């Protein structure tokens, strides 16, 4: 259903970078104070627009990593692609105090709030974990005990974004469980996998949820989302309960 806000235009505005925190060798979090604070829902993204002196402009989408419960500051976690135009700008040029044009919140499908209930299955590949982390932070901020399982695939242990936060969350035993699938890490760890997500991994991790997921969210590169979503369907999860967000590249 369309709500009132869906009829209003999402305007471009400037936001000031207030902090930069390195997460992994290739990923950093950038914190923004929007000049016009906005309310958002976990899972949504913003569009960022960069403008060159000659008038050339380019824009990209970035999922919001922060929780809507934590105030107006927006956290984006951006992975540096070596020949990427926008991600290299953030990693190599942008500094605290810089003003950046962005607009949001955007997206009315890949969203979750505690009111939607669960259990929820979250499946992320690489930086595709970002909107899922927002959902988990929202869940935690609301002291929710809705069963949640994150199946998170990355190349290696050191490339897991928000690793310590997620491990601590899994330790605290509030119905949150974490399963890792590390595709290029030879070190085997209990309850975790050292290969790409497949139907067998999905079936095995699903058994860790007290009931089948009400909603499943899959996010990452095109290739990751296709493989993971196929594995979920092969493991018997109804296609209609799976929502995906594709990062394109």
């Amino acid at each position, binding site marked *: 259903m369309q709500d009132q806000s869906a009829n209003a*235009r999402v305007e471009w505005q*400037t936001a000031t970078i207030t902090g930069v925190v390195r997460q992994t060798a290739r990923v950093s979090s950038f914190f923004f104070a929007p000049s016009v604070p906005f309310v958002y829902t976990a899972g949504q993204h913003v569009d960022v627009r960069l403008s*060159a002196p000659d008038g*050339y402009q380019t824009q990209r989408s970035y999922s919001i990593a922060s929780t809507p419960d934590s105030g107006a500051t927006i956290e984006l976690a951006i992975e540096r692609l070596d020949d990427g135009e926008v991600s290299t*700008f953030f990693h190599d040029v942008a500094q605290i105090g810089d003003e950046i044009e962005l607009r949001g919140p955007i997206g009315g499908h890949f969203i979750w709030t505690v009111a939607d209930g669960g259990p929820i299955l979250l499946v992320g590949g690489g930086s595709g974990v970002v909107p899922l982390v927002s959902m988990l932070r929202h869940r935690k901020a609301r002291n929710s005990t809705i069963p949640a399982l994150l199946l998170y695939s990355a190349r290696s242990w050191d490339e897991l974004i928000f690793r310590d936060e997620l491990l601590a969350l899994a330790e605290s035993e509030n119905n949150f469980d974490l399963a890792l699938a590390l595709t290029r890490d030879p070190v085997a760890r209990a309850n975790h996998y050292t290969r790409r997500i497949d139907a067998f991994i999905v079936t095995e991790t699903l058994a860790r949820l007290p009931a089948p997921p009400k909603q499943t969210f899959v996010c990452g590169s*095109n290739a990751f989302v296709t493989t993971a979503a*196929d594995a979920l*369907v092969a493991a018997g999860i109804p*296609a209609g309960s799976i929502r995906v967000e594709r990062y394109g590249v």
Partner: protein
Amino acid sequence: MTTRGFTGRGQSPEIKDRVPPGQSLTEDFPVLSAGPTPRVLTEDWKFTLKVGPKPVISWNWDEFNALPQTKLTRDIHCVTAWSKLDTHWQGVLIDDILAEANLEPPTDFLLAHGYDGYTTNVPVKDLTGGRAMIATSYDGKPLTADHGGPARLLVPHLYFWKSAKWINGLQFTARDEPGFWELRGYHIYGDPWREQRYTGD
């Protein structure tokens, strides 16, 4: 405003006119979808033309492929800010589908339906006059499931979410009925040259 320290890759002048505002060129194929990729077998495939709730005519895969075939080479533009130039498609023009059905458009609006339950609205005038087709082939090969195969709508002059994947029908509607993304914050029409990405743009 100018972004401090940003010069950008820039764009070569000869293609500048072909890339709408805010878009960047890609060699990859831009993909947007809301759920998993449905695997539809051509032996199960069916395409139905409806007026309101009423089915007018249906084709199975072989019947549909016997309709007049047309090739289009077009630039396509995804709302996630990717454009791809000179993509090659083959399929059946909406004009030829309507002619075959012997149907004069009874209303000004169509809703495209996909096997995954996806819908998207497009005015009839944007689908006729050689501007749109049901594509069954991309780059000389059968359309893969990832790109919407067996068949997808192709409306290249609008943002690509309008080119519904895994299509199984077109339905004339009395009014312009918002489809899946149009109900979720995306623009009702989606013209890339006017940067109509989101509601109200």
